[in-house]
């Protein structure tokens, strides 16, 4: 589809919504859907930045190496990454996730809203559990993007959701729906999937966060029946605000937080895909394992993890036939995202 056509469609959309819908459904491929989503995302991001208006200053107290410092930053513009830039390149590289006021997790590329203390977290810090979870969540999130890239259009791919990250379950997962009945990917397919994910990681995208209103989110995910279902519940809980994340051109709903960039993902393996529903609907669970950069593991040890991730991960299954052991712990649908 040419740029010209896209522009005309954009105009069409703004003029009459109903007509646009019919056209959209007929001639928009998944690629076009993604582009449309990104355009909306960009517009909203720009709008929010413009709304900041007069720049106010906040005091950020930085704790950590090389030394504790107080920095004067811009409200709603400066991010923790900007703070790290004041120190050195090494500090920037090691900043994966921020901790604000010693309690709240904050994305590295999310603008700071008020004066606070700031700590930067890394995979190898003393207690990296929070970072590990953010990493695991990011992997799930990216897996959705990879599947969108790699699967053919006639498969009817719709991303369902990805659950709360659980390292102990042994794999990160992403649930998808297809119009294929019994998809049994070969070893080569799985391998190409993990290679695609590695490629995605090496593209080195910063992961952006954006809070949008319910309407815009609905507009973005109107082609996805599952998201359409989930959105009202989420917006009710969060006072009409929905959090979106973007890496490259892939956008999804998630509560966050996530790590700062895709470049921290070094070793990926996608060992299995399981069908998790019965015949009426085709929900699949794609499972994978990954390690952040700077972590080495022998091929044999990594294979042990891969073998374990082959089994179905029963954490927070979206259907009711979930494993009864985990049913108590499983949060509701809204919490899962």
């Amino acid at each position, binding site marked *: 589809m040419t740029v010209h056509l896209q522009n005309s469609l954009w105009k069409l959309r703004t003029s009459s919504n109903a007509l646009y819908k019919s056209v959209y459904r007929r001639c928009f491929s998944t690629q076009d859907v993604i582009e449309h989503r990104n355009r909306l995302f960009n517009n909203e991001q720009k709008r929010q930045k413009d709304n900041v208006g007069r720049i106010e200053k906040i005091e950020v107290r930085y704790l950590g*190496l*090389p*030394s504790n*410092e107080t920095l004067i930053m811009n409200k709603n513009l400066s991010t923790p990454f900007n703070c790290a830039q*004041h*120190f*050195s390149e090494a500090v920037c590289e090691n900043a994966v996730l921020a901790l604000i006021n010693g309690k709240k997790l904050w994305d590295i590329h999310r603008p700071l809203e008020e004066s606070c203390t700031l700590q930067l977290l890394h995979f190898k810090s003393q207690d990296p559990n929070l970072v590990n979870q953010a990493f695991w969540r990011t992997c799930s999130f990216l897996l959705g993007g990879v599947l969108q890239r790699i699967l053919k259009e006639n498969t009817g791919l719709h991303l369902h959701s990805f659950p709360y990250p659980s390292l102990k379950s042994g794999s990160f997962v992403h649930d998808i729906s297809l119009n294929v009945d019994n998809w049994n990917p070969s070893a080569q397919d799985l391998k190409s999937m993990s290679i695609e994910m590695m490629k995605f990681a090496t593209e080195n995208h910063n992961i952006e966060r954006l809070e949008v209103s319910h309407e815009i989110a609905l507009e973005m995910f109107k082609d996805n029946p599952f998201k359409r279902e989930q959105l009202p519940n989420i917006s009710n809980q969060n006072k009409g605000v929905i959090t979106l994340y973007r890496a490259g051109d892939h956008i999804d709903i998630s509560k966050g937080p996530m790590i700062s960039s895709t470049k921290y993902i070094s070793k990926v393996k996608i060992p299995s895909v399981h069908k998790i529903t019965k015949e009426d609907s085709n929900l699949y669970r794609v499972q994978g394992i990954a390690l952040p950069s700077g972590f080495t593991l022998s091929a044999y040890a990594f294979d042990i993890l891969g073998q374990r991730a082959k089994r179905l991960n029963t954490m927070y299954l979206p259907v009711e036939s979930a494993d009864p052991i985990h049913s108590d712990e499983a949060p509701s649908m809204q919490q899962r995202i």
Partner: protein
Amino acid sequence: MLRKICKVNLIQNNLINSQYVIFRHLSAKAELNEAAESQEKKKTKKPKKALTDMRFKYPEFLPQPDNRLRNPVLERIMRKDMLDRRTQINIPEFYVGSILKLTISDPHSQGKTNSFVGICIQRDRTGLYSKFALRNVIDHQGIEVMYDLYDPAILKIEVLKLEKRLDDKLIYLKDALPEYSTIDVNMEPEILAEGGNIPVNDTVVKMKPFPWMQKWERQGLKGVEDLDKHLNLWRKQQKVKHDSPWDKYDLMKEYRKTITEEEQSEIFSEIFNRINKINEQHKQKAKAARRTISKPQNIG
């Protein structure tokens, strides 16, 4: 903005100091761990003296000390073969300076056996390669013969006189007066009391005039008379020039030439039981043989 850049530089300069502090912090932890560990460690056992003393009696069981040429599997096979050979022939304890009588089967001689009496002037090499040299002066002709210790053609090794000399090698007897290496071919064996120390023969040898086979004056020999009277000025100067009095302080040179105590005890503990059994068998055999010989003499 300028101020900030300055600050960054300062911080980078301080970075080394802060790392140093981290080391200190960790080191406190490490020391504690080490202290705890050292309490648990027990003193290692010292090797038994009986084992390490076997090194004088059986020097050929110790491998050559160059690590590059050693292999534990090969050494073990070789030791087994050596002990197998020792079951067939009694290889007695002898040293450089002892007088031996050797009987071997010789395809060239008329009776197909041959024997030689002489003073042992050298023991060399290790394992199945170990060899020794005997020297004697017969009919005013100095003769030396080298034998492999584990040669299957050897029929009998008799020690006629068990003693040590002041030096490790008596090769200089070639250039000494012939009386020092002249031994009676029909010499009777001298029997030593069992368990006693091996006597050290401290004869000092007089040398023949030049020419010599080797530069004996440079070798620091103990069993040789003062050699200075043989030397001219040039040779005396050369002796001083080539002297290396610092060699005795070279600890690692010494170390690289030896097999360590731990390894020695490991080797000798492996062969200890079997070699003692073999020695006892040979003793009993010798007793039986003596009885058979002595009986007719008594009657006669």
